[in-house]
């Protein structure tokens, strides 16, 4: 069944017993992730991302609905699922601090069923790939947070998983370590085609950089799903350009642009001009009904003695999409801990 989705969920619901009332962490999630796809679940804490991952990795039973991973049911075919998946979580402290990096990976290779010699070979390869060669004989408890997460990532690769779950993998990492980890994830994508990634994150950049498609989730529901470009288009019906001129147009100034056909609005954003205080340069944010109106804008300013010195199309970020859909930013979070 080559076209079988790597992840298939229908009406997946998870309700936790809690006082005074039960908490619905997932409220009927429908999801299909194709084989070879890198898929992101983007949402704040409490959105239900981790709960969904725990159901898909056989750690939790759904209260209602069905879910399959690699074609196997998460309720009845757990053994088969566990042979083809792996999971890496952010801030993971797994293993034993007295072991060296190499020993720890070998120990996990034994849990994943690799033969002894094959396990050591795989361990050495992954140590090299993840850049832990200098730490291979160092005790795990002495590793830095970034090195530790590289080790966790290598652990997640030991069994060459067909479906890899990364749950907030860069949580708590500094910029360089997070970038390294994202690069390793992308190298895996290039090196092991047909493998599927399900990533949960609340870092927009991460989701955008790694994922082919993204689902924005909040309070246990998928609010939007699509490629990053598709999601951005959902909140941007108009085209927004940032235009920088050497001076304001004569005879009407900015109003001339605002009155042009196809121009929805034009506002000055002079604070964005780097040397605005030392010259007559002006920056405008111009909203157009579509890109074709740009020609009339450029012509109009030229006719009025201004010259175009900068032009850039403004793209909405995934954060804009999230705010548009949810009505609040990531900073305004609920604690998933209390829910799941």
């Amino acid at each position, binding site marked *: 069944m080559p076209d079988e989705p790597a992840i298939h969920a229908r009406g997946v619901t998870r309700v936790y017993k809690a006082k005074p009332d039960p908490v619905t962490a997932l409220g009927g999630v429908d999801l299909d992730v194709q084989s070879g796809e890198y898929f992101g679940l983007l949402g704040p804490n409490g959105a239900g991302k981790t709960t969904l991952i725990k159901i898909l990795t056989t750690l939790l039973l759904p209260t209602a609905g069905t879910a399959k991973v690699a074609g196997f049911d998460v309720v009845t075919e757990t053994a088969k699922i566990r042979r083809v998946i*792996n*999971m890496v979580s952010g801030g993971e402290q797994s293993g034993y601090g007295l072991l060296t990096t190499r020993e720890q990976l070998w120990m996990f290779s034994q849990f*994943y*069923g690799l033969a*002894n010699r094959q396990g050591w070979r795989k361990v050495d390869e992954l140590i090299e790939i993840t850049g832990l060669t200098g730490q291979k004989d160092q005790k795990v408890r002495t590793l830095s947070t970034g090195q530790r997460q590289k080790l966790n990532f290598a652990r997640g690769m030991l069994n*060459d998983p067909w479906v890899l779950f990364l749950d907030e993998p860069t949580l708590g990492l500094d910029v360089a370590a997070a970038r390294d980890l994202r690069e390793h994830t992308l190298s895996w994508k290039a090196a092991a085609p*047909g493998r599927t990634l399900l990533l949960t994150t609340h870092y927009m950049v991460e989701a955008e950089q790694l994922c082919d498609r993204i689902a924005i989730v909040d309070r246990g529901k998928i609010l939007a799903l699509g490629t990053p470009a598709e999601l951005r288009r959902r909140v941007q019906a108009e085209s927004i350009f940032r235009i920088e001129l050497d001076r304001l147009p004569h005879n009407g100034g900015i109003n001339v642009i605002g009155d042009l056909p196809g121009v929805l609005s034009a506002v000055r954003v002079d604070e964005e001009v780097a040397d605005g205080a030392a010259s007559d340069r002006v920056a405008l944010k111009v909203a157009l009904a579509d890109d074709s109106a740009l020609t009339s804008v450029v012509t109009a300013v030229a006719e009025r003695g201004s010259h175009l010195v900068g032009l850039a199309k403004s793209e909405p970020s995934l954060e804009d999409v999230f705010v548009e859909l949810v009505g609040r930013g990531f900073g305004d979070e609920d604690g998933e801990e209390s829910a799941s």
Partner: protein
Amino acid sequence: MSRYGSTTAKNPREAAEWSAGRVIRSNLRAVVGRAYPRVISLAREPSWLFFEIFLPFLAVSAFVFVYRALDAPEDFIGFVVLGGAMTAFWLNVVWMMAAQFYWEKDQGNLELYFTAPMHLMSILAGMAIGGLVLTSSRALAVIGIGSLVYGVTYDVQQPFLLAGVYLLTMIPLYGMGMLFASLFLLWGREAFHLAELLQEPIYFLGGINFPLRAIGPLAGVVMATLPLGVGLDAMRQLAFADSGVQGVLPVGTEVGILAAMGVVFLVAARMALGYLELLARREGRLTLRWQ
């Protein structure tokens, strides 16, 4: 970079099909993998020489001096040394078996064990075998030093039977630890208190520092429930064959009891583990670190 994807399977369906032989081999590897950290800790953490040998030796010494002050039979000194050595196994079972899943959950290991393609019994077996190797070395050290310092003489007429009883004692003892590992996690958060709760009463009921027969009818309870007490009583009879002190039951009977206990505790551990996993998946509270 093809090293990332080295599996020979063409698709996940093929990768998920494991033969019975592969399942068995994988579980045996998991046993070895989990035993490894415990065995390696012998060399990595030399502090055990003080905590696991010197301190137990002091505890043994206290009873030796009491018995000598009371002019008790000299065999009692040997009883105490042997009991002191066996204490190490009980402490290992309580702290490094029974409480272990609790710590594993805190570290985040438990959920990785759950999602790995091996049975959790393999993890428990690995913990038990690693603990057994680790603790045997400590117990032997206590016996060696205690015997040397206090001049204990043994009368072992059936050394193979003695070794067999020792090994047989370990099966229900660690089986009990495997059972407790699940129960501790099910019962509550304070594994530390539960472990402490099991410590002192067993020193008494297990007859660690005195012949078990001395506790009268309570010895019957021990014979029915505590593999440590049964095994220790049998080993004392075999190690001090010329002793005037009798065991609670003949060695043959105690061997039978230990064998039955081994089966009961291992089956119970398997069932408790199955229930634990069901509960973990149903309630969602056992594999989550913050709960």
